[in-house]
């Protein structure tokens, strides 16, 4: 076998491949709790053809491949569990096309959310996309790969529901187009009216293919945005409040948070409601509808709209919102991880109580964050903890607390979002056996050599 580094260098150029310990160190870990594992090679392709050649090489030599965006998903999904090649996608960051009237954009597989946001603001100020509150370097392809949620998820579902087409490099090295783009020059649908094959890739963590292009639906961008925060001290009322709010169909985004510090937030649950409008009248009308919808909670003294100072408003309105990243380091020492199951909204109260109980028992800093997805069909509930990486004991406590949270979430009907390997294992064990077999069939057919991000969605549990 020819030296792999050399072969990779022939594909991407020397500058964009490394097997050096410095790179291996960085690409071995993410900001979460999963133990590090070094890759053998790191490679940064520029074109889809380069990806194809890398995949073919890996397939021939049976070397694992781990596609990587910004490595921000926190749950170890880009840690090369079995070594091999990390394909860092960041050089493939072109915005290929915007179809303004059909409201979609086609981007390369390494394009970041921040870049797309800046591009649209400059060139297409009437269009927007569903930006997640992760750091702006997070990539669009990876975010849909993990079924992320963003600012428009309350209205339109998971960010992956907003995909309008995919170009995939299959584990064989072949390129496959998914959706309308498979027979039309237009990328307006990822499936319908065809069989929706996007499900063979979205949610698989790169274990069935590499997204080289993704089309994303864009949405109207209203000229104004504003935020209201409804607070209640009764977590059991949160589902009803959300029901009323989503029933108005007037809201852009709904996030809920609760945390003991700073004091302004103590003891309460905060429902952050973003509204948009093209005119003052539209904005005011929507706000009135929202106030009216929650009037009974105000009358019963169970909740009210807090006054939000301008500086605080800015914090809640910025996209992405940086406060999550700020919380991520409250303990200092740079450790942050959350288990973020998707649950039905009714489960919010018990999950919030559980998180508080876990934080007390394990003496950890916590915050509850939840984002409503699709008009209350479900929500992402984050059991979030921060920890100091220099404090081994604190890391162990966090790990145990997160494990308990995961078990709890599963037992209360939740489904893991961007699960760690540990959570994937729990999910596979619990899953309907026929579904599990289908996953196995698909994976075996698409990736017979098991080179794609191995360890993930591994149906033979002992192979994990």
């Amino acid at each position, binding site marked *: 076998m020819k030296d792999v580094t050399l072969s990779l260098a022939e594909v991407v150029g020397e500058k964009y491949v490394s097997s050096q310990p410095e790179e291996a160190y960085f690409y071995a870990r993410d900001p979460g709790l999963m133990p590090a594992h070094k890759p053998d090679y790191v490679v940064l392709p520029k074109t889809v053809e380069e990806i194809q050649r890398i995949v073919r090489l890996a397939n021939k030599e049976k070397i694992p491949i781990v596609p990587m965006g910004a490595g921000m998903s926190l749950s170890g999904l880009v840690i090369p569990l079995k070594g091999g090649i990390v394909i860092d996608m960041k050089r493939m960051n072109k915005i290929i096309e915007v179809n303004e009237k059909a409201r979609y954009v086609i981007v390369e597989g390494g394009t970041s959310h921040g870049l797309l946001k800046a591009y649209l603001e400059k060139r297409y100020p009437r269009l927007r996309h569903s930006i997640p509150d992760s750091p702006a370097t997070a990539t669009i392809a990876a975010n849909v790969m993990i079924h992320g949620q963003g600012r428009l998820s309350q209205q339109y579902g998971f960010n992956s529901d907003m995909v309008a087409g995919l170009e995939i490099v299959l584990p064989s090295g072949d390129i496959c187009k998914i959706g309308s783009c498979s027979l039309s020059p237009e990328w307006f649908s990822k499936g319908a009216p065809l069989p929706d094959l996007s499900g063979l890739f979205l949610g698989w963590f790169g274990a069935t293919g590499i997204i080289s292009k993704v089309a994303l639906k864009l949405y109207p961008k209203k000229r104004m945005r504003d935020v209201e925060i409804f607070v209640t001290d009764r977590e059991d009322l949160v589902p009803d409040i959300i029901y009323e709010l989503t029933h108005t169909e007037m809201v852009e985004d709904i996030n809920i948070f609760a945390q003991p510090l700073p004091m302004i937030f103590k003891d309460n649950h905060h429902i952050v409601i973003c509204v948009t409008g093209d005119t003052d009248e539209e904005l005011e009308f929507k706000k009135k509808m929202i106030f009216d919808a929650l009037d009974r909670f*105000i009358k019963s*003294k*169970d909740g009210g709209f807090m006054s939000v100072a301008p500086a605080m408003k800015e914090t809640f309105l910025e996209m992405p919102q940086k406060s999550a990243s700020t919380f991520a380091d409250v303990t200092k020492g740079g450790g942050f991880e959350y288990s973020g199951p998707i649950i039905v909204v009714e489960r919010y109260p018990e999950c919030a109580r559980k998180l508080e109980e876990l934080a007390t028992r394990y003496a950890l800093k916590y915050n509850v964050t939840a984002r409503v997805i699709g008009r209350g069909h479900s929500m992402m509930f984050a059991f979030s903890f921060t920890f100091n990486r220099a404090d081994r004991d604190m890391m162990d406590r966090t790990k145990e607390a997160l494990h308990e949270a995961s078990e709890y979430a599963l037992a209360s009907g939740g489904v893991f979002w961007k699960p760690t390997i540990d959570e994937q294992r729990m999910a596979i064990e619990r899953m309907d056996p026929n579904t599990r077999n289908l996953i196995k069939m698909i994976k075996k057919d698409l990736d017979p050599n098991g080179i794609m991000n191995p360890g993930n969605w591994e149906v033979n549990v002992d192979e994990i």
Partner: protein
Amino acid sequence: MFTLKFDENLCKTCPTCDCLVKCQYLDLEIDEARKEMMKIIKGGDSFVLQDCVTCYGCEEYCKRGNHPFYLITERREEKGILTAPRAITKQWINIGEPRGKYKLGEIKEKILSFGFMPEFLELVQGRLFDDVMPSYVFGQEFFCNVVYIHFANTSIIKERLPLVIDNFRKLGVQEVVCLHDECYGSFTSLAPAYGIEVPFKPIHYFEYLYNRLQELGDEIRPLKSKVAYQRPCSSRLCPDTHHFVGDIMELIGVDLVERTYQGENALCCGSIFRMMYGYELANDVQKRNIDDMVGHGAEYCVFNCPACLNALATKVAKRGIKPIHIIDLCRMAIGEKPEMEVV
């Protein structure tokens, strides 16, 4: 425990019952007003305890030295009648809890008190404050806690206010210039009403500004603009200082427009109403208030309380009126740039 000094006999013989008759939010004739007041005094059930929106107005309307609003607040608390949603009340009580994180300037005998309003750290600049800065205090430790009368909670005031006053005492200060008139009201109205001793001389910053502007008289360039003044609820606790608004405006050469909602008839900024009662009341009050400013041709809306400024600044700006804090307006008159941007 501190108890409210309230003279029932004053009410029995009151010729006007102005406290409730003048109330802008309840509609009572004199006989009914007296009846309800007596019910409140006796600890009975009065609809006033349910319907009062905590504008503080009656504290000013009573010219006989009684404290009708403090009494209403006491009775509400005794009966467990909430004014605001529980979560909002808790939030405010938590915010004001002393945290040991206050800021002190170079403390002299005379100090500026910013209470717990961070805006003043930014606002208090320039020659107007040369005389006293950087002698200031800021933080929960120096926060008068009066706001809790909005939340029908005097026990928290009775618990915290003496400690706050003690913090001033420990600094050995003689004169405290209160930048938030709620603090001034607490030292000159609320504390005496409860028999809490105040060991320093409280000075309202309007008085300070007025005197300072007189000292800088030669440098004043009349601003020649028409302004509306947004009177805050806290000003009802110290109505004796209200004349300074007109006095200051005259000094700096601006025309205080004669509008409907001014003086005793002033309307609240609406932010408390929004939190406690929802959209309708807040919106109605804000709309009437701003329409009135526009109708009288005001170019500026001059604020006293930063919380009112937060609540109304964007709204008045959208109607073509520039929001400005009174300190910034005075600074403009002596040729300085305002600190808080005029939107």
